[in-house]
């Protein structure tokens, strides 16, 4: 049996992927996470001196912190199983990626294990985030100095 005739048999036997259901659960999970984030940003605006624009920084930090705690207690795993990408795409997925890698490699020691592997997945996010922010800022600086745009 070659690979060509093998694939149709796999397609026949393998259970069908519930794409629509997965999309719905991802949408729901992501939506609920974002609604909680919105609530936290309202709390920062209502009880502290944050405006809509500045409240986003502490909100992101809080959401990441909550996700890290949930990962540590083993609850984020369950959310991830239910919501799939809905739990990975919001910023909480970032916290989960850091802490789960740290927990996984703890047995290899704190330096080479936890320290070396903690940012295995999240490191790429940080590197590309910082780099793209740098490129965008560079472009904006050039455009502002040419008089095309304004700082606002």
């Amino acid at each position: 049996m070659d690979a060509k005739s093998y694939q149709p048999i796999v397609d026949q036997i393998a259970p069908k992927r519930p794409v629509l259901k997965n999309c719905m659960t991802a949408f729901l999970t992501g939506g609920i996470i974002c609604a909680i984030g919105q609530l936290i940003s309202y709390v920062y605006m209502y009880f502290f001196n944050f405006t809509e624009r500045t409240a986003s920084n502490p909100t992101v930090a809080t959401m990441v912190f909550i996700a890290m705690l949930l990962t540590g207690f083993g609850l984020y795993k369950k959310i991830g199983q239910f919501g799939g990408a809905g739990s990975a795409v919001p910023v909480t997925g970032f916290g989960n990626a850091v802490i789960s890698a740290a927990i996984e490699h703890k047995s290899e020691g704190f330096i080479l294990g936890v320290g070396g592997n903690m940012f295995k997945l999240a490191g790429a996010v940080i590197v590309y985030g910082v780099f793209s922010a740098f490129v965008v800022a560079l472009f904006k600086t050039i455009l502002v100095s040419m008089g095309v745009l304004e700082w606002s």
Partner: protein
Amino acid sequence: MKKLGGLILAISLLLSGCSSDPQIDLLHAKQDEQELETLRFILEDEEKMSESVGVFFDHQVIVAVQVHPLSKFRKEKIEKRISDELKKKFPNHEIFVSSDLKIMWELKDLVDQHPSEEELKKSLADIQSLAKEAT
């Protein structure tokens, strides 16, 4: 049947958020009715807006607006449009327009409190420093 009922409920809740008339709260330190009417007229004219607060104090006009959810992407343009129109109507006033929710809350609190002139001055300075991210 149950599903249909849920759907109708969800859609009606979704739409009811858009149907209310804009609410406008105004305060003038010197009780100049004519200036208040001009400001009310400008704000009522803006149809993308759901709520607004305006305060006149010592040659300053401070306005906070909230736009409909679907217009949030054009928030800055609406802000600028109102600001330009106010500048035309009140040429000897300092104009400050914000679409930030926090500024809206603070200004609304201020209007509801009916503050004295001294309090008004201090609160407005605080609100403006908030907008400049100076806190």
